[in-house]
């Protein structure tokens, strides 16, 4: 039995969930390697403030994919526990961003100095988007409304709420230190968004290790009745996943507003919910809930960013991006279909059998 556990075979790789996003990532990287190896060039330069920064396509992917990776964490949990997705994350990120600006500006849309420490603004934003998450969570967990329908409310209303928070003003923060979160911290050459994403991932790993969140969400997602009879409170667990997603959204909101030091309510984090859901799917997680693989989701998020960056690199019209993503979705759905998988396994078995024969 021990052998079975540690045994590592090609067959197992195919069956492993994490195979899909890694294969997709490799495919994209190989594509770039063949067409233009300069894709992999990373250079150390200085930004206009004189700080050392790394640059290159790979760094851009790590930088721009951060928000998606952070959202993927929360979205994976929500998907696992509720078997549905939160489509309000983009709008909630707008709310979080708006709250941050509101607190920092203190009502004046173009303040000389920040009116509050950034950490305070961020914590208020965390609170606000946790509240949004809690609102969704109550609708889904307690009132048993389908997640997509429940989150449709904030999806529709969120951006108006975000605008209302700042009285329809578009505040601009001129303080240099605020742009660190979406850019670079002086002296550190790695983009801060990636560092923040890394921090979120580490926290997630720790939470997974030192709590039973993973087991509980999966158990509730797979069989609610059974979980209940095993002493779990499915309502609370579903609720809490939405609140956790809320925290992720607040972090995303901070990065987003910091990137440009201002906000545009109608386009900030636009369509990010669909990308986040796609990341979860790309990670091979069942969108119907149940078992999940967090690592796969996070890799999935970076795969999406890698695709986006690649398309920009080749000057593909950016409004055609969704069409390419659709192609990915199709490939994904087809390749995860049981029949296709069986075919892969069989074909592979055929190849290896042949090789063995030839060797023998």
């Amino acid at each position, binding site marked *: 039995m021990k052998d079975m556990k540690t045994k590592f075979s090609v067959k197992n790789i195919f069956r492993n969930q994490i195979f899909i996003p890694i294969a997709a990532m490799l495919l994209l990287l190989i594509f770039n390697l063949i067409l233009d190896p*300069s894709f992999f060039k990373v250079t150390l*330069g*200085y*930004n*206009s*403030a*004189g700080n050392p*920064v790394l*640059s*290159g*396509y790979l760094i*851009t992917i790590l930088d*721009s994919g951060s928000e998606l990776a952070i959202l993927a964490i929360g979205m994976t949990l929500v998907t696992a526990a509720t078997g549905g997705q939160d489509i309000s994350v983009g709008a909630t990120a707008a709310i979080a961003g708006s709250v941050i600006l509101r607190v920092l500006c203190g009502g004046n849309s*173009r303040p000389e100095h920040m009116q509050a420490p950034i950490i305070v603004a961020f914590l208020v934003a965390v609170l606000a988007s946790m509240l949004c998450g809690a609102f969704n969570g109550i609708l889904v967990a307690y009132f*048993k*409304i*389908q997640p997509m*329908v429940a989150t*449709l*409310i904030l999806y*529709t209303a969120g*951006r*108006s709420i975000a*605008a209302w928070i700042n009285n*329809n*003003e*578009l505040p*601009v923060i001129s303080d240099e230190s605020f742009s660190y979160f*979406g*850019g*670079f911290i002086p002296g550190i050459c790695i983009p801060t968004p990636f560092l923040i994403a890394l921090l979120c991932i580490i926290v997630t790993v720790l939470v997974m290790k030192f709590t039973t969140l993973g087991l509980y969400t999966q158990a509730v997602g797979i069989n609610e009745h059974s979980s209940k009879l095993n002493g779990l409170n499915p309502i609370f667990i579903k609720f809490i996943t939405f609140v956790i997603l809320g925290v992720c959204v607040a972090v995303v909101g901070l990065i*987003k507003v910091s*990137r*440009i030091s*201002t906000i*545009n*309510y*109608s*386009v*900030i984090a*636009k369509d990010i919910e669909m990308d986040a859901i796609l990341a979860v799917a790309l990670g091979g997680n069942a969108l119907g809930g149940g078992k999940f693989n967090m690592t796969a989701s996070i890799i999935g998020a970076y795969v999406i960013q890698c695709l*986006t*960056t690649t398309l*920009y*690199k080749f*000057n593909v*019209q*950016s*409004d055609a991006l969704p069409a390419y993503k659709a192609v990915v979705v199709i490939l994904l759905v087809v390749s995860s279909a049981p029949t296709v998988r069986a075919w892969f396994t069989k074909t592979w078995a055929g190849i290896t059998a042949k090789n063995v024969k030839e060797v023998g």
Partner: protein
Amino acid sequence: MKKKVLATLLATTMVFGLAACGNSSDSASTDTANDAATTDDAATADTTATDDAAAADDSASSGDLIKVGIINNDPNESGYRTANDKSMKEMFTAENGYEASFAYSLKNDEQITAAQKFIQDGVDYLLLSAADVSGWDSVLQDVADAGVRVILFDRTIDADESLYEASIVSDMAKEGETAVTWLKDQGLDEYNIIHLQGVMGSAAQVGRSGALDEAVKNDGWKLVTQQTAEWNAEKAQQIVQSVIDSGEKFNVIYAESDDMAKGAVAALDKANISHGVGKDVVVMGFDCNKWALEELLNQNWNYDGQCNPFQATYIDEVIKTIEGGGEVAEKTIIMDEKGFDATTITQDDVDSYGI
């Protein structure tokens, strides 16, 4: 099984319910400038005479006020729209002799509903910034039959000219031409341009892109990349980042909105590429946001083209003319729009033209 069916049913009802909610909340945003309660629904609409607006300002009797119904796009859509809405609200007040009701929507059918309601309310003027160019003929005919005069602002529509008194619009193509002429006058050695477009097909995008495309064709300018960033700063940042990563040379950023220019500049800063007056890259934006004009004042950007949101004063003039028994000379009134150069802009310009 039964439960599932029931759940699906319930969910469906919910969706419809929500859709209904959405509708009602949108029409509920049909509120007056002074008080939301006045035009809450048809019941109160019949008795609009007892208006809070009038009550708030006892000095003017309600009979003297000119009633205007204003149908606009959602003010959250952009800074331009916010400024536009704000100027409307500042102009059409009881002090200026108006009694105004507002309706906001980005959807044509909801705007038409609002128009019909304004007819019932008996407004004197209908001010309209239509969501779509078509589909307005019949409702405008109704409006004309009711003796209401129509003034279009910001956007034109596909309807007979006789159906409206005036159309006060920006000439986006002219905005583009002004900008491109300015760029030509800079006399750069070579023109390697990153062109960041707005949402494809929008009037602003078509107008502002047209002039540049023309110049690229005729003057041998080079487009390093031409991409739509859909008015989105982040997307603009990614597109410019991508060009920087590729190592291609460029010296002009022609962004069709201030937001996109800002995103582009963020990417430049990250790569330590200097920009602004006398620097490596020329940065051009549109819309004249106050913060953008400040960037010009600080010489970080080079040019900002105006898209005038202050139609209110023009409308006021048109109404005054009609009320005074005069004729409106031109049906289509093109507003004055400037282009600001970083080398000549003053603090006064920022204060008076910044939105």
